[in-house]
């Protein structure tokens, strides 16, 4: 675990909500954008809520900028209103009865500035986020992208030491999402404190975050740089997210016996013991007959169970030892007449297999 340092965030806590328990230990340094990735109900929003002080921890503690925010053992707790935290909520929660300017001025005002000083603080942030022209509008008159920027401006206007974003782009339609995402990335780069961003969109996480934490069932199952997580997924959920075939197995030199049946020949790096093997769907070759002489060290029969048309390719769902997802071109589907139920042969080169230890997380 890396340490957040004196101006970072350190969470080492448990939050119990009914039968659900979130138990995490993570740190985010100043300037770092930490992406929290995970399926629904994994505890991502609960984590944000605990960090913001909306939910107290049941055990452990949360430190921000060297100060205790919440410590269950010591009984210390800083109320949400006392924490230097900016929170961008999933549906923004802009106050419908206040103008954009008053929404953004809310935090400076609540934190003790006079009406005029709060107004000028707000106009600074409105200018910075390109919202000056919308100052007098009500939230109901904003587009999704504008509302998202107002929410960000409102959170930043309180001059927080930490920024929390809960699925900041999920309320947007696909058309505006990419633009807003690029813009958000720029603004996050300007923010000096640590930033936690919850998402269940892997692409969003890869674009926005410097490092990722994957939560499943209230536990951290993987953390690392986006590139690392994308190349070496540790769980089926992550593998599916980043679009890889993932197999657990037992390595013995150049052979990996897969837990679910089947085996792979892999480049011999002298690996022994439990390993994970990741394969890109596009690295697998489909043949209508058993390939005779081939450089691919791994060849096995499989049955097509499904076809899905992706943007420029067709993803085949295959049942075999082991099962696999394979990407082929639409032309290949037509030439080989790949239909559900069809028996085919799959082959993959040993060098296209990514073999790594499952690790602790």
């Amino acid at each position, binding site marked *: 675990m890396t340490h957040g340092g004196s101006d970072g965030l350190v969470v080492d806590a448990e939050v119990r909500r009914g039968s659900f328990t979130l138990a995490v230990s993570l740190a985010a340094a100043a300037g770092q954008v930490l992406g929290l990735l995970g399926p629904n109900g994994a505890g991502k929003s609960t984590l944000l809520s605990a960090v*913001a*002080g*909306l939910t107290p921890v049941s055990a452990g503690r949360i430190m921000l900028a060297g100060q205790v925010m919440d410590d269950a053992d010591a009984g210390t707790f800083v*109320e*949400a*209103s*006392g*924490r230097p*935290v*900016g*929170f961008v*909520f999933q*549906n923004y*929660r802009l*106050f*419908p*009865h*206040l103008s954009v300017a008053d929404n953004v001025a*809310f*935090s400076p005002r*609540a*934190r003790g500035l006079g009406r005029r000083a709060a107004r000028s603080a707000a106009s600074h942030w409105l200018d910075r986020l390109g919202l000056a022209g919308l100052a007098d509008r009500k939230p109901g008159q904003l587009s999704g992208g504008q509302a998202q920027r107002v929410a960000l401006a*409102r*959170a930043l206007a*309180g001059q927080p030491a930490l920024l929390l974003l809960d699925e900041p782009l999920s309320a947007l339609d696909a058309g505006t999402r990419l633009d807003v995402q690029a813009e958000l990335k720029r603004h996050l780069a300007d923010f000096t404190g640590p930033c936690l961003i919850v998402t269940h969109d892997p692409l969003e996480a890869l674009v926005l975050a410097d490092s990722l934490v994957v939560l499943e069932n209230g536990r951290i199952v993987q953390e690392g740089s986006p590139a690392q997580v994308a190349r070496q997924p540790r769980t089926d959920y992550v593998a599916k997210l980043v679009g890889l075939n993932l197999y657990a197995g037992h390595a013995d030199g150049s052979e990996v016996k897969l837990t679910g049946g089947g085996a792979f020949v892999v480049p011999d790096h002298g690996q022994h013991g439990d390993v994970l093997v990741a394969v890109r769907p596009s690295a697998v070759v489909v043949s209508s007959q058993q390939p005779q002489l081939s450089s691919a060290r791994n060849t096995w029969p499989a049955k097509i169970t499904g076809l899905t048309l992706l943007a420029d390719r067709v993803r085949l769902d295959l049942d075999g030892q082991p099962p696999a997802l394979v990407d082929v071109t639409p032309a290949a589907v037509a030439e080989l007449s790949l239909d559900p139920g069809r028996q085919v042969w799959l082959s993959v080169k040993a060098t296209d297999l990514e073999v790594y230890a499952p690790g602790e997380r």
Partner: protein
Amino acid sequence: MTLPAPSRLTARERARRAARGGASRSVPAPLLVPALIAVAFLVLPLVGLIIRAPWGHIGAALSGSDATQALILSLWTASLTTAISLVIGVPLAWVLARTRFPGQRLLRALVTLPLVLPPVVGGVALLLAFGRTGFIGRYLDSWFGITIPFTPIAVVMAETFVAMPFLIITVEGALRSADQGFEEAAATLGAKRMTVFLRVTMPMIAPSLGAGAVLCWARALGEFGATITFAGSFPGQTETMPIAVYYALENDPNAAIALSLVLLVVSVVVLVSLRDHWLRGGSVT
């Protein structure tokens, strides 16, 4: 199997169904007849009031000093009642909606009891508490020389006792159904609980607050039983409009009808303003 014979469908009805969707909207007779009886029952008495009104002499009937005094007394006591209810009833609604403590259900039941209690019982209860020999009134009298019954203060107290619960339950319901996410957002923006209450919670339930206040005012304006029991009916002092109507009916029916008309007009205005509040309440969220 025989299919039912087709019925007639006019072009207008076709257009309406196409625009609104759905099947036939004709009302079956077993529902229509009782519905019409109910309408007649509710509307006919008001028609009677309007038919029998001494339209030529309404000014004269109302200009009697008693009537004017009663109207003025009713208006200011109902308004003061509403103001008091806002100041003490809204905080109580918040406590009931947003906190949890032992005995809360019992408290809510007690607070809403005046809604179902016969007002005259409320008047008797007030008399037993604040009357000259009441368990509180006794000390008010002997220590401070304050006598409440049969004064305008008693009118306001009787009206508050009966009308405030309307405001409380309206506001409490609004607080319960309000999205607390906005209050959470306010907290993360550094607002303490009182700031959240004043700058977020109150403005967001403003339509319900208005509706509750209007309901409370209307109920206070029409209060009769508790008022006449606790405050009596001294013209100019404690004789409110409903009480004036009741006494006028015996010796000056025309004045009674004129006074009733005034109350009817006030009620219609209240109803229209309530409708407006509810409509706005729907469009805010």
